[in-house]
């Protein structure tokens, strides 16, 4: 299945889309570009930590709500299009923390109506989330907070290795991507390399993304660019630095329009850019 087919078949307008990775590390950016090209609308995003993924989608007006513990461009600055969209009221933020997302996903596969949480007691997050409530622990009579389940309609995760059955191996940090794939109704994985199942089981961590949950596997070499995909390449600092300054329409025309990954990689600087980032 091509990336175009996978996105058109499994991502619908209005969906809550779970995105793997963290800020600009192992984000499924080729799939994000495809979502933008297809002009998807009113999507919600749930991601552990958002960065370039959320910012691109905010710039393209594809999203109207974001659930993330943090959205930023790390040492490169605040996320410019995300900021603009939130400050102008176009994009609604559903305040989360790392634990409220991690537990919200767990609540789905534990089939629980909520998960108890202690850390966010006394934060203002409770004031801006009607669906989070404080309650009294029935066993110890202490203050606790109930956070709701988070069930994405579709999860999109980029991994270094996958097999054709949909077993995905994440060589580096997993963050919450394993749980994301377990609870989403549909799962698309993009990968750097498609290998035999026998090879997946020899990799550290084996298949953290389980085949029984995966609907589409699409091979996209450098599919996370300009974010990183360990162990193959790091993020592209020159591209990201440029992204912070460039006008969005120019960025769209130059870097999002090209459908073919080869054409895209030529635009970002070709072989020299690749040599900069490979490990």
């Amino acid at each position, binding site marked *: 299945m091509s990336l175009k087919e996978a996105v058109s078949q499994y991502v619908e307008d209005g969906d809550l889309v779970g995105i793997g990775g963290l800020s600009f590390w192992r984000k499924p950016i080729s799939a994000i570009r495809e979502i933008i090209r297809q002009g998807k609308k009113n999507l919600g995003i749930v991601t552990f930590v958002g960065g370039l993924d959320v910012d691109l989608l905010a710039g393209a007006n594809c999203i109207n709500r974001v659930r993330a513990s943090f959205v930023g461009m790390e040492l490169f600055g605040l996320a410019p299009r995300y900021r603009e969209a939130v400050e102008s009221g176009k994009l609604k933020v559903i305040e989360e923390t790392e634990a409220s997302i991690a537990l919200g996903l767990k609540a789905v596969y534990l089939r629980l109506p909520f998960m108890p949480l202690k850390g966010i007691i006394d*934060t203002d997050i409770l004031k801006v989330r009607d669906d989070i409530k404080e309650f009294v622990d029935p066993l110890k009579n202490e203050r606790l907070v109930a956070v709701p389940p988070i069930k994405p309609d579709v999860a999109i995760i980029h991994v270094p290795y996958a097999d054709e059955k949909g077993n995905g191996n994440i060589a580096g940090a997993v963050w919450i991507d394993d749980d994301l794939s377990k609870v989403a109704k549909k799962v698309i994985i993009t990968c750097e390399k498609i290998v035999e199942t026998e090879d997946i089981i020899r990799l550290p961590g084996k298949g953290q993304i389980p085949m029984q949950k995966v609907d589409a596997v699409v091979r996209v070499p450098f599919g996370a660019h300009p974010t990183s995909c360990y162990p193959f390449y790091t993020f592209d600092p020159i591209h990201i630095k440029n992204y912070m300054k460039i006008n969005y329409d120019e960025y769209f025309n130059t870097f999002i329009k090209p459908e073919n990954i080869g054409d895209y990689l030529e635009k970002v600087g070709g072989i020299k850019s690749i040599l900069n980032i490979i490990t």
Partner: protein
Amino acid sequence: MDYSIDELITVLMAREVTNTDVMIVGVATPCVWSAFTLAKVTHAPNAIFHYIMGNTFVYEARRVSLLWLENTAISRCHRIHNSGECTLELLPHDTLTTIEFFRPAQIDQYGNTNNTCIGSWDNPKVRLPGAAGIPDFSGFYSRGQSLYVTRHDRRTFVPSEKLFFRSGVGYVNGQMPVAGGAGPKFIITDLAYLDFDEKTKKMRIKTRHPGVSIEEIQEKTGFELIVPNKVPETKPPTDHELKMLREKVDPLAIRRLEVLTGKERDEHLQYVIENEIKMEKRVMERI
């Protein structure tokens, strides 16, 4: 030896680490990573790194890097977890002592912090990145919360009513955190080392940095600080600390990106990127 503000802040943070700590290296905080690495190669050889960037625990110290961070955080790790395991099971642990430094955009006299928005939440003037994992961890730490601020001014140090959003919990109304941890312990800034009064839980000046007066610190703080009878001068970085930091831990001064602003910052970022791209060896050297 002369030293810069980023060096002073980094050295002061390093001195807080003990030999039995798990040191949490967060996202985009090269001052903190430099401080932990400096501690590891000076006085805390058994401290362990925990990288959010890998969900990993790593024993050895390597040179700080912007681009090749994953090669340190992942390829040299002893085990990979997922974030749920790290956040919820391992870090607020009963027997591990954990140290993590948070940098708030706003902080009040009780150590409550805001990293969510400037202006009202509904209609923000500036949307900031968000709470991240700060509330998930900070209230639990048995040795308390550690904070740092690279620019001590009235925009950051605000009275409680001007804290736009409480995204990190300190001593709310002077009370201990509900989660059971020890609460905010200290704040290292470019002007002073501040801590909290044991009884009232209000912020107090503990030491002032060389050349900084108590008046200046108070002037740049948006609420009244407790000033004890004796406020000694902060012990400046030693030659050994500076030498290790400059030559071994962070020779490209990546930490400076947390202190610089505007054009200067942009140029320094470019300098770091160019130098790291040029490196033949992309696993940083062991210190």
